């Protein structure tokens, strides 16, 4: 997977060259050849059909870095993907060519303490699609371990398969925060992550969900996707007490779990103040590194702060939730592009612009 590289393009070969979208510099994406590593016995080769753009992908394009990871050499972008199996390794038993699969983007060592206890998302040696120096999957084809490819039920599209990745963030957060029939949920931020968290929370049984954002349009989308109440908030820390009052009123009950899907001092401060005594605040968003927050009053009410990083063991559940109709992710896809130089550039510009764009999807 990540070991593929820029090929020289062996001429005179019947097989067409595998092409990928390479990040070469700031705002500089180029479709170029991508040489795949040989297929291992436990690998599969997948023809990519649907790839979504994530906020982190956009961050890399704009800054060549994201959360401490730095792009030091050309790297294939993209990680939210699904495709069709082209070839299977010799030991692969549960997948065959033609199978439609969603891909979990992280390859971990399976040997360290974190992996052995099932928290493989915390593996220090994780190789994640499009987190440098590992190549991503916005390409014609990739090679990937078979056990990280999940067969799509017939009634699921490949685009829905690609959406399993962002949905996994919401699903995993709900699991860590123990969302269920007893938990009223507050969500800070109605961007893509706030929205998938909301969809997941509802699927987990949350009786009441209030979502807040600074943007009316995003709030309107959230309402259409099932939020019980929406509250418009500001970026000013001075407004926290007033907003907590509005939120409490909108919820009409105790806030049991709050997801901060933005991750700024303001949103965390609001989350800590708004969450009921004995509740949980789950920090999902990674806005700021250092935050100035009223942590002590929250701790003195035994409001715990839970962190989440990506996800683990979520694909089977995501497939079940989508194929059973419990979650409908299709409305999240607002823009579609094909896989050409011009469209790749336009797609990233569209995603970076925000506005009405939620999930920008490539169809290859």
């Amino acid at each position, binding site marked *: 997977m990540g070991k593929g590289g820029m090929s020289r393009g062996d001429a005179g070969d019947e097989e067409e060259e595998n092409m990928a979208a390479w990040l070469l510099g700031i705002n500089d994406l180029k479709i170029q050849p991508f040489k795949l590593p040989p297929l291992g016995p436990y690998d599969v080769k997948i023809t990519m059909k649907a790839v979504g753009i994530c906020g982190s992908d956009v961050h890399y394009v704009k800054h060549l870095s994201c959360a401490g990871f730095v792009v030091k050499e050309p790297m294939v972008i993209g990680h939210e993907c699904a495709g069709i199996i082209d070839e299977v390794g010799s030991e692969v038993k549960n997948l065959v060519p033609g199978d439609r699969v969603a891909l979990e983007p992280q390859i971990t060592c399976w040997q360290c303490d*974190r992996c052995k206890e099932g*928290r493989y998302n915390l593996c220090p040696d994780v190789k994640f699609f499009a987190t440098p120096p590992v190549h991503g999957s916005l390409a014609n084809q990739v090679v990937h371990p078979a056990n990280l490819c999940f067969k799509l039920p017939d009634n699921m599209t490949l685009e829905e398969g690609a959406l399993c990745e962002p949905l996994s963030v919401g699903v995993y957060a709900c699991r860590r925060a123990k969302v269920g029939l007893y938990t009223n949920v507050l969500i800070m931020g109605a961007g893509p992550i706030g929205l998938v968290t909301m969809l997941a929370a509802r699927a987990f049984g949350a009786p009441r969900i209030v979502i807040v954002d600074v943007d009316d349009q995003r709030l309107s989308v959230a309402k259409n996707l099932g939020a019980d109440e929406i509250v418009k908030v500001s970026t000013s820390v001075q407004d926290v007490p007033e907003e907590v009052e509005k939120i409490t009123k909108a919820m009409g009950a105790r806030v049991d779990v709050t997801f901060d899907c933005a991750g700024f001092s303001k949103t965390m401060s609001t989350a800590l103040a708004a969450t009921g005594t*004995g509740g949980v605040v789950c920090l999902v968003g990674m806005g700021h590194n*250092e935050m*100035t927050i009223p942590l*002590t009053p929250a*701790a003195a*009410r*035994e409001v715990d702060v839970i*962190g989440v990083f990506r996800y683990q063991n979520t694909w089977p559940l995501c497939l079940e939730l989508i194929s059973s109709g419990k979650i409908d992710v299709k409305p999240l896809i607002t823009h579609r592009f094909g896989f050409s130089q011009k469209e790749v550039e336009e797609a990233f510009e569209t995603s970076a612009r925000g506005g009405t764009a939620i999930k920008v999807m490539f169809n290859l």
Partner: protein
Amino acid sequence: MADGGAGIQESKGDGREENMAAWLVGIENLKIQPYHLPPLGPHDVKVRIKALGICGSDIHHFKHMRCANFIVKKPMVIGHECAGIIEEVGSEVEYLAVGDRVALEPGISCTQCDLCKDGRYNLCRQMKFFGSPPTNGSLANKVVHPASLCYKLPDNVSLEEGAMCEPLSVGVHACRRANIGPETSVLIMGAGTIGLVTLLAAHAFGAPRIVIVDVEARRLSMAKDLGADETIQVSTDIQDISEEVRKIQSAVPSSIDVTFDCVGVNKTMSTALSATRSGGKVCLIGLAQTEMTVPLTPAAAREIDVIGIFRYRNTWPLCIEFLRTGKIDVKPLITNRFGFSQEEIEEAFKTSAGGGSAIKVMFNL
């Protein structure tokens, strides 16, 4: 209990002594004055207080007439870490008898709200807690208290040890919330009384390795005597965090699974968040600062959970059991003793507030 007042107790002329208590009447102003007890309810007991320890929060009330959001607006009896002997039992009290030696859990919760019914009564908003205004405390000859919050002491556990159950409960509750066990290596920030009871509790819960840090060498020496595996002296300078984290991490063969911040300032929390392994827990016990500036996001991105601690719940039976079996020895924490007289209470509070070599200052009544 709390409804007792600074009344002029009618001398009944039957030789019954007037109940006296230590009243906080102003900043750094304690006066032993009469304390009129409420009538004994059917589920109450009357306890003659024999041992009472001074807590940092008592000192805070003493010095500032407030502690966090609790403000002393009228004279209040101070003190809450106590044990004594039952003098009288209410008509419905079944499991306690006159003469029983008991340790007291200071907080009376409402038992009716959602939190109480859920078992998290320490978070009850209507909590009446000894020595938290406006509820009178227990540095008195006698108090009236619900029988269900009085726990009988085994013969081999002294009344002073009974009084120590209260601070020890903070450590025990924290270890429970943080799931301390044979697989959790522990780091403790701060070797004051709370750091030390957390150390004792973590050890009793089976933590295989305990590292404790403090700015003062003397406190670390006491911690070492009480069983810390490693002690590291740290500074108050934020610049030193990386170096200190390095020292802390090399003090354990594996990694730090749980950190208890028994201080609660930016430096200690930031150190805690950096030193703890991914997937671990940081337990915030110390409540020094209100707003904190901490690198929360990198810690959350390593799935470090921050667990809050407020007092304790359902801890007395376990504390008493630890003391009975000798699994925990709290006696070394009692460094100074005083009797119950005007002069001695003033000296006791001065000693406790002065810190230094004083850990737990205990009244013997």
